[in-house]
């Protein structure tokens, strides 16, 4: 079975608040999945369960392992970055690498040192002496030196400037990712990761509202620039959203075929963020 992660009817309650509602999802090997949702939608709750940091109801298996029961075993095969600022402040870079080497069977210290030679980080630096961006580089260097089957990134670039963010994803894609690995990313800056994703999952109020690969999205959602003269005709096809730019209407359609849509105006692939906004609004109206 090539499924890295399977979830069946996963539920999580905090008191009366239902953080996850019947989540069903399968993620297979070699994918880069964007987990996208508004604040408080349950992204972090889902990831916590996946990483064995919290319990949940239902059937959840990561690499065939129950994450909460056997977190230590699972962590030999997966790794995660929860937030850039979480490396312990008091530790020296050298000590951090040494500790990771001693505790992780799949960590290559020479690889990590090689990554660090490309940065300004020195082995005798303490983490608290590093800037936010350098801390992220250090964390990424450690994570990329772990031969893991699944990498989970929860808002990995939060608080970083745009140069670091771009470099972060470039490094990830060029030096780390191959078809044997799988990555799950959550972020609010969807535009920045859109081009590297193979799949997207939208989550809203604890429910999965969309689980599709990027090709499917491109084939079923279209963004069309409609002129004033085609307005009435376009409206008849019930666009999901519409906005007016420079006297033209940009409409988003969900359609099984491109043929009819093309007659209305210039067709583009919608951005994930536009689609996200559209689907979230659709749910509101429903």
């Amino acid at each position, binding site marked *: 079975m090539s499924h890295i992660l399977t979830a069946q009817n996963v539920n999580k309650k905090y008191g009366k608040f239902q953080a996850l509602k019947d989540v069903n999802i399968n993620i297979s090997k070699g994918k880069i999945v964007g987990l996208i949702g508004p604040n408080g939608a349950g992204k972090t709750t889902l990831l916590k369960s996946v990483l064995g940091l919290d319990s949940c109801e239902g059937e959840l298996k990561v690499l065939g392992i129950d994450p909460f029961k056997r977190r230590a075993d699972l962590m030999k095969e997966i790794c995660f970055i929860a937030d850039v600022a979480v490396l312990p402040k008091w*530790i020296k870079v050298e000590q951090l690498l040494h500790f990771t080497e001693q505790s*992780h*069977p799949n960590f290559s210290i020479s690889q990590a040192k090689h990554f660090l030679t490309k940065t300004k980080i020195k082995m005798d630096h303490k983490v608290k002496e590093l800037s936010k961006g350098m801390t992220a580089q250090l964390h990424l260097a450690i994570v990329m030196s772990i031969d893991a089957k699944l990498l989970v990134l929860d808002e990995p670039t939060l608080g970083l400037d745009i140069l670091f963010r771009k470099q972060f994803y470039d490094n990830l894609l060029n030096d780390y990712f191959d078809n044997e690995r799988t990555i799950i990313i959550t972020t609010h800056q969807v535009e920045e990761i859109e081009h590297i994703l193979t799949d997207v999952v939208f989550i809203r109020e604890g429910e999965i509202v969309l689980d599709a690969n990027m090709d499917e999205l491109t084939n079923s959602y279209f963004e069309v620039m409609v002129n004033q003269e085609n307005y009435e005709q376009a409206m008849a096809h019930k666009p999901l959203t519409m906005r007016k730019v420079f006297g033209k209407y940009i409409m988003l359609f969900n359609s099984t075929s491109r043929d009819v849509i093309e007659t209305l105006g210039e067709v583009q692939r919608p951005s994930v963020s536009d689609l996200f906004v559209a689907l979230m609004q659709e749910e509101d109206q429903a």
Partner: protein
Amino acid sequence: MNTFKALLQREYWEHRGAFLKTPLIMGSLMSIFLILFYLTVEQFDLRVGGGQYIELGSATMDDLDSSGIQSAIDIFMLFTGSIYHFVLFIILFFFMLGSLYDDRKDGSILFWKSLPVSDTQTVLSKFVTALVVVPVIFALGLMVSHLVFFLVTSLILLINGINPFTLLWSNINFINNWGAFLVGCLAQAAWALPIYGWLLFSSAYSKRRPFLMAVFLPLIVGFGWYFYNAIVNLEVLKVGVFKTIGIVMAKATTPFTSGMGFDLESVDFDPTKQTSGELIRSMLNGLTNPSIYYGLIFAAVTIALAIYVRRFRNTT
């Protein structure tokens, strides 16, 4: 790869200041006070007695009875040892209070949990650090401090024309006095087990202030017990819980008295009353007391709870 050793090393790296520097600084203070004391006496002697008192004193030193010198040295070594025990307990107290809380507070717990280290290993590494690693460092620190102190004393003796080997070194009973300190560390660990367990649990469980929970919850239980007996059973003098806490604290802070029984009068340590050999026997005898087992059970339960809570508590 050696996860547990790395975990212990990690604790040492994080707390090197408290674990290593404290005993060495205390040792330096010992020698510095000795030098200051000598200089004061010398100045005083030069101004008041023209230097003849120290000369007279040095001359009479040779006639001193060696058993008197021996017991003076024993008292010094046991007394300083007792202070080291006390400071060791204070350091361990705050170390354990923070050990499962600080990483939740600064968020680094999520990094530690991203490594294949189980929560059981993590909690046990803190426990073993408190039980074994830090006492061993303190014992070595005390030995170094004693040796430096005796070297400084030898220099002072030499300056005044006294042979330090016959007067000082031949009268030092290293084995018994250092042995008493080491057995003291063992007794301290044994009696403090329930406190250590409670501190680890408070540290793992507490959301805001582990100190308040660790200190005030037992006190509230103590008051509850006291007033229950006072009001319901009219036993105004029954202080059960407070007495237990008090005795365990006394034995944990001054383990030299740990063999002396269970009334609060016998918790003051007086190094002049017992030789180090008697002290060792008394402490080992105290360890056969059955109440040690109650402490052991309490520690096992609280540590198991600390591990349980640690599994899902990732923030503060």
